[in-house]
């Protein structure tokens, strides 16, 4: 027996789904969604969970992560309840709930808090960066105010908190999702197979490619390279590639290694993908090419913009390293690049981006269960 909680709907609305109360359960959205099958049923049933305030149904669901926000369901809804936008809101809600610090909640629910926080972080990171050049004028002044050790340790603490809360979020999600697993000997091969499927999906976006394939779809006859799934693929792999390249560079301790160095090649390719993907995504949102793009939340704008700027400034630096350029300008660009990249990394677990760690886990559950059912 579950108690209905009518307040919950207004909570979800704060995460960006305005109209879902209008749903009258016709089920068109579920019928039209290309990603539902025998074992998974969405989005209608989750609109139900939201309307009735069945929080656990949402937090224990893998389904909300299977949705790629193609928006086809929203186009089909006779009540304009926006089931696609609603699913996106549920993901934001879930990220905010899994993550233990409460920071995500603040960022998602309040734009001013989000802006202030980003600015604050930029300033902090700026100062922090100066500490890497201990003989600089600003650094010396800084060290008189706060000792180097404190700053250094603070950095470590912050990074640890970020890491820990991401791990915490993942574990929370794992535990929640495990509650609804239909118990039936999850054998080892199952486990491996499921992860193999996850990697395959992340590599090919096969499921995303099946989205929005109706005859009247805007994307019907468009080339793959500009379709939403490929844009998403580019951003994701671009970002991950850059992260890896940066880490490799960091380990090799020499950012200016020659251009043919594998980490540099990886960085270049990943950067190209990232800029390509973000540019298209920004254009789509700007032009509102389909209903899916008709409303973009501030946090989404900021992150796309950050990614794009990080990519562009990265290339600038690449080129200027090769050809040499104005020293001061280079330093300013470097500062921007580093601050933005660091912000992205720091906020990774507290933003929409966190779906990159939660979705694979949900996919894992899904693949494991669908294998069991077959």
């Amino acid at each position, binding site marked *: 027996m*579950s108690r209905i909680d*009518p307040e919950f709907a*207004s909570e979800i609305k704060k995460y960006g789904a305005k109209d879902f109360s209008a*749903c009258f*359960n016709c089920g068109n959205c579920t019928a039209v969604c290309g990603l539902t099958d025998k074992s998974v049923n969405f989005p209608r049933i989750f609109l*139900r969970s939201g309307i009735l305030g*069945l929080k656990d149904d949402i937090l224990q669901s893998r389904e909300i992560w299977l949705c790629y926000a193609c928006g086809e369901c929203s186009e089909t809804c006779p009540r304009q309840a926006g089931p696609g936008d609603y699913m996106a809101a549920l993901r934001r809600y879930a990220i905010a709930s899994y993550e233990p610090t409460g920071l995500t909640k603040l960022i998602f629910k309040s734009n001013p808090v989000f802006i202030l926080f980003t600015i604050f972080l930029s300033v902090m990171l700026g100062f922090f960066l100066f500490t890497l050049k201990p003989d600089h004028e600003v650094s010396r002044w800084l060290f008189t105010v706060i000792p180097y050790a404190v700053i250094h340790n603070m950095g470590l603490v912050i990074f640890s908190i970020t890491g820990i809360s991401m791990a915490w979020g993942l574990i929370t999600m794992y535990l929640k999702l495990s509650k609804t697993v239909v118990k039936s000997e999850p054998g080892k091969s199952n486990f491996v197979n499921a992860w193999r499927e996850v990697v395959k999906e992340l590599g090919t976006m096969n499921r995303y490619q099946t989205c929005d394939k109706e005859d009247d779809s805007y994307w019907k006859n468009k080339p793959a390279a500009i379709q939403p799934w490929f844009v998403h693929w580019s951003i994701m792999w671009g970002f991950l590639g850059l992260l890896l390249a940066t880490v490799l560079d960091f380990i090799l301790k020499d950012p200016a290694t020659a251009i043919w160095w594998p980490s540099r090649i990886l960085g270049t390719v990943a950067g190209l993908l990232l800029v390509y993907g973000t540019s298209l995504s920004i254009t789509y949102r700007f032009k509102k090419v389909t209903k899916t793009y008709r409303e973009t939340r501030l946090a989404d704008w900021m992150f796309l913009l950050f990614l794009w700027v990080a990519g562009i400034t990265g290339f600038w630096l690449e080129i200027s390293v090769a050809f040499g350029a104005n020293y001061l300008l280079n330093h300013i660009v470097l500062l921007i690049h580093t601050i933005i990249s660091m912000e992205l990394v720091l906020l990774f677990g507290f933003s929409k981006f966190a779906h990159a760690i939660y979705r694979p886990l949900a996919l894992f559950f899904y693949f494991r269960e669908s294998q069991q059912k077959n």
Partner: protein
Amino acid sequence: MEEKQKKERIGVYICHCGGNISDYVDVAQIRDLAKNEEGVIISKNVMFACADSNQKEMIRDIEDEKLDAIVVASCSPKLHLHTFRNVALRGGINPYNYTQVNIREQCSWAHSDTPGEASIKAAGLIRAGIKKVSFSEALENIEVSSTRAVVIIGAGVSGMRAAIDLAKMGNQVYLIEKEKAIGGNVAKWKELFITGQKGNTIIEALSKQIRELTNITLFTGATIEKVTGSIGNFIAEVNIGDEKLNLKSGAILVTTGFDSYLPTEGEFGYKNNPAVITLPEFKGLIDNSHETLLYNNRKVNSIAYIYCVGMRQTKGENKYCSRVCCTTAIQSSLTVHEKFKDIQAYHLYRDIRTYGKQEILYERSSKNGDIYLKFDEKAPPVVEPIGNKLLVKVKDELTKRRELELETDLVVLVTGLVPRSDSKQISALLKIPVGNDGFFNEIHPKLRPVETVINGVFIGGSCQGPKNISESVQSSLSAAVKINALTKNPTIFLEPIVARINFDACVWCGKCAEVCEYDAIHPLEMYGKTVASVNEAVCKGCGMCAPVCPADAIDMAQYSNNEIEGMIDGFMEKVELVAEAGDKLQDGGEEGIAMKDMPLIWRQLAGCLQGDSKSIPDLAKELGLDSELVTYNLMTMNKYSLVEADKLDDSDEYFSYKLKNIPHVQN
């Protein structure tokens, strides 16, 4: 019963129905068979019996051949009975000396896969028709004088609206209301869907018009005690307090409305828990509250509506849907939302039936954040007290039948409409039947929706079944128009198909009166003995009485013993048809049949087509005919392999046609 003169000059017309009949029934052979029947003077095949030209030909035949009866074998009498009765009349014979035989619906259409059988059946039916008509009697319509006055029972919105129109059309109207106040249920509702108008405003407006019309007499606190007489001349005995009045009227309109369903004690906690109330009670509560919604002096923060209470019972008596309650509940919820802030509504429903424009209200309510939960009739919600609130448990069909519970301050039972508790009494008084649902029954829900089986008694509004105001008024106004069509003539003509008593034979055993559902038979003193007598204005000609009479004293007009026996004899006689090779009588034989007779227009077309092939526009021009008619006939001729498409004409737009196979046609 005295032996009547048999008809001796009968005309028989057998229709092709443009192929509808003649494609399957061998009309030519049957025509020849009919010609040999006793009393038949002419027997003809016709392309379209109902066509003007044929009607004229029939009239000419009646005059020239001095026919005294006619038979048309064609489509269903539902279509053309009156057409051919009229032809008879115009030709100078009594319209009741006419019989229609249905060889289309009953033969060619029904037995299209066995044309031989179809033809034999048609031949039998036609012979039966000829026998029937030969015993037929000339009958005169029953004439009844009519009073230009109408009694309307029930001054709800339906009765009031009909009264105004009937009065304006020139009838004296007696409007009889049981209660002290008029307006019925509508007077009780403040906020109305969809217009948002107030119930009492509507009633006041109607009431003002009624006061202004001098030919409406309104009786309140009045009840009908007895109704006698029949169409054109009813006498209604009305009690007003101690006073008794006899009102004479030509017709009666029943607009007695409905009762709201009253839940039984304990149904969803009704009566056991004060916070469980019905929808009409709740509407009253909304109207009487201002700023905050208070119930028993406590502020109401949440309301759970339970739908279909007492309605749509698969096991119980009320199987029907009340149509208005869904919308009323939703409208109330919207009003609550507007009038008092922050009240959470839960709607526990089985189906939402906000048809037509009412759907908009449903959508608005969802958008307001009202929560809808769908339950199955077999697992209804359970209401339990919890502290000073109520706990409602429901299995939600929309959430995989999940068991859910909610806390609420008030439970509103969305009760439907039921027949009025005294409707049995009205039904007995007027002899109008009620349906399985207990509401008054019309003759035909689609085609005769406001007439009852009793001539002169009409029903309107929600006494016929659940209706909203527009639907109620629509039906009562259509009854008003029907009534005026009756009363505006001083004389009403009724079909003479009634029971007739042979007074010599009748011994007044009363059996016939017992079985007559319409109470048309009463004893009468005559020649010093008691006999049965039939009120012709009341008798429906149903025939129930005839077979029960031990003295065989009852004969039905148009269905006398002679006629019925004649029909049986006619049908029993063996029919012999000749089946030739290639004839359609051989089942599965050739499509094309030997046409022994071509309709005039075919002959004309064939004439034009001697020599060159011609296109439809050219043929139409040449014959001065409508091109559609030419097309239609060419198509049929094509089917009979008489013509075929040749080549495109000069304009390249139309095919031209040429003669194909004309030799076996005798012009």
